[in-house]
């Protein structure tokens, strides 16, 4: 998978390239809009991560030029302005997703993954992580063969973590996916709920599955 990061701010470009490379993607960097248009026309990238504020040609121009030239590479826009009109403009021009700066890198990674596998993933009936087993159809969670008694929301939360095992999920993402609360304040409510879930899923067992990633969020991981 090849990703082109278009970003003129040096530090941002560096951490994006480093982070994406370590996540397993081949990553190139373009410093301005013209270079981005040129590179995207030469090389078949799987994804563009595009800053809007760029020298020479700005992000909007890059998107419209590429789409006009029938280059259909998915584009993830990075904007500094959290204005609805900007979002709408981006989608109108042909961008596929957007993130507002400052963003969490884990969030960026999640968006990149979902853009790269746009084709719908087959919905699994049963999820397995280490000795945790979840039967989504029958709403049953088992650990080491023992049934775990969960409330409806706890089940949804555990299923979310299990489906994206190994991926760090931010509190905001969790609140949005489980409770449909899309605002990023008061995320300690998520902590309380995760703590309760742990009480049922992890506390009775030696092998802890749900891990806290400080300053980022939570991950369900089979590793010790």
């Amino acid at each position, binding site marked *: 998978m090849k990703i082109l990061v278009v970003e003129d701010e040096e530090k941002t470009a560096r951490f994006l390239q480093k982070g994406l490379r370590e996540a397993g993607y081949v990553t190139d960097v373009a410093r301005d809009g013209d270079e981005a248009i040129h590179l995207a026309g030469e090389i078949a990238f799987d994804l563009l991560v595009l800053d809007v504020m760029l020298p020479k040609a700005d992000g909007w121009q890059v998107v419209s030029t590429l789409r006009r030239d029938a280059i259909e590479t998915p584009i993830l826009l990075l904007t500094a302005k959290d204005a609805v009109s900007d979002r709408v403009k981006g989608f109108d021009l042909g961008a596929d997703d957007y993130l*507002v700066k*400052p963003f969490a890198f884990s969030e960026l990674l999640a968006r990149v993954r979902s853009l790269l596998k746009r084709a719908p993933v087959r919905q699994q009936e049963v999820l397995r992580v280490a000795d945790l087993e979840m039967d989504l159809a029958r709403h049953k969670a088992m650990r080491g063969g023992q049934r775990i008694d969960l409330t409806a929301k706890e089940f949804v939360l555990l299923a979310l973590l299990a489906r994206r095992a190994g991926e760090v999920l931010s509190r905001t993402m969790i609140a949005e996916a489980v409770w449909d609360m899309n605002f990023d*304040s*008061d995320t300690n409510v998520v902590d309380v709920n995760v703590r309760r879930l742990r009480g049922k899923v992890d506390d009775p067992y030696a092998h802890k599955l749900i891990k806290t990633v400080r300053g980022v969020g939570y991950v369900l991981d089979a590793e010790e």
Partner: protein
Amino acid sequence: MRKSRWSLAFRLTLWYTAASLLLLLAATGTLYWALVANLERSSSLFLADKVHVVTTLLLERPNDWDGLREEIELESAARRYDQFYIRLLDENSKTLLETSRMSALLPAERFTGLPGRVGRAESTSGALYLATEVSAPVGGRKTNWKIQIAVSLAEQQEVLRRYRRWVWAILLVSTIVCPLVGYQIARRGIRPVQYVAETAKRIGSSTLSERIQADGYPVELADLALTFNAMLDRLEESFERLTRFSADLAHELRTPVNNIRGEMEVALARDRTVEEYREVLHSNLEEAVRLSELIGSLLFLARTENPGTHIKREITAVGELLHAIAEYYEAAAEQAGVTLAVMAEADLSVNADRSLLQRAIGNLVSNALGHTASGGRVELSASAAQSGLEICVRDNGCGIPAESIPRLFDRFYRVDAARSQSGGFGLGLSIVRGIMLLHGGSVQVFSEEGKGTRVVLGMTRM
């Protein structure tokens, strides 16, 4: 275009002058006309008087020639001003008696056309006379004699001439004086306006507390000054708010940035274990996340204050929304030992941006939970109200001091700074108000210290 740039003083002067001159012209004109009429009337009366005297003499004492002579020849000759002449003619138009020099100045034929009426006659020297010719019966004889009388208008004309000279002189002086006086009056009249303008010019960001002294101004200008002062009050208040906001913002940024910087410097001062580096990075990440949240909240607030911001309205069932929010906070409430209850009237809905409304109510619930001790109760309710719909978040927690309530919606304002140190930025209620503004709704806080707080969101009902 040019006309509109004439100064106010100039325009006032122009109008004042025009009005004064017009009035003066009308007044002097009327007076002149009255004077002419009066003079003419007095001459006519004099004439009639003389005719009456001579007629009576002829009728009653026709043979008193001495009396007639005195009346006709002597009396008129003795006059210096308002000279008059009388001639007596018999039935054959032969002159019987006449005032001396009359035949030279006003021969009998100058009276033709005047029998029985009063008119003007011109003497041989060109002077004007008011004259008449009357036919009068003579006592004792069956015949009529003619009396010709003329009174000089020279004196009258001299009076009118002098009057006209005065009028022209007055008009000339007025044309010069009126503009000067008018300009002075106009200048004096608009001086307060100039003062207001000068004060306004002087007021800058550092002298916003200065005000225009409205004492002793005429009503209209006092009004202007008061309006102006009210505007300055509002400006000063917003400016103060802005200054306070900048100071607060700097303060909020100082702590996390200082932590990041300090921890990094200390960490880099010497070699450390991987664990220690990891600890520093984690700690810094937490600070950075906090900063991001602050920026996010501020951007959100800026957006709510931009009148051009669009919101994605949809029909939202209020009861359902409240239950969803309560479900989200359920675990946190339980942990705090607080009962969380929802009491919503059925079938209430609003046309609102669901996620924004959720955020507003969420902020209120979070505040309520944070200020209610274990064993307390937080209640979410929705009811139809006169004005539309009310969503209410009520707690029986510690309450808010009355003096803090007006400042609750200010950015970064915290009722109890020390207590909330670990929590948010003091932006929660500002955000709630911003969201309600976007929806054209209202937010009110009712609180009693020690008893609890009730926050009411007012919205238009669907």
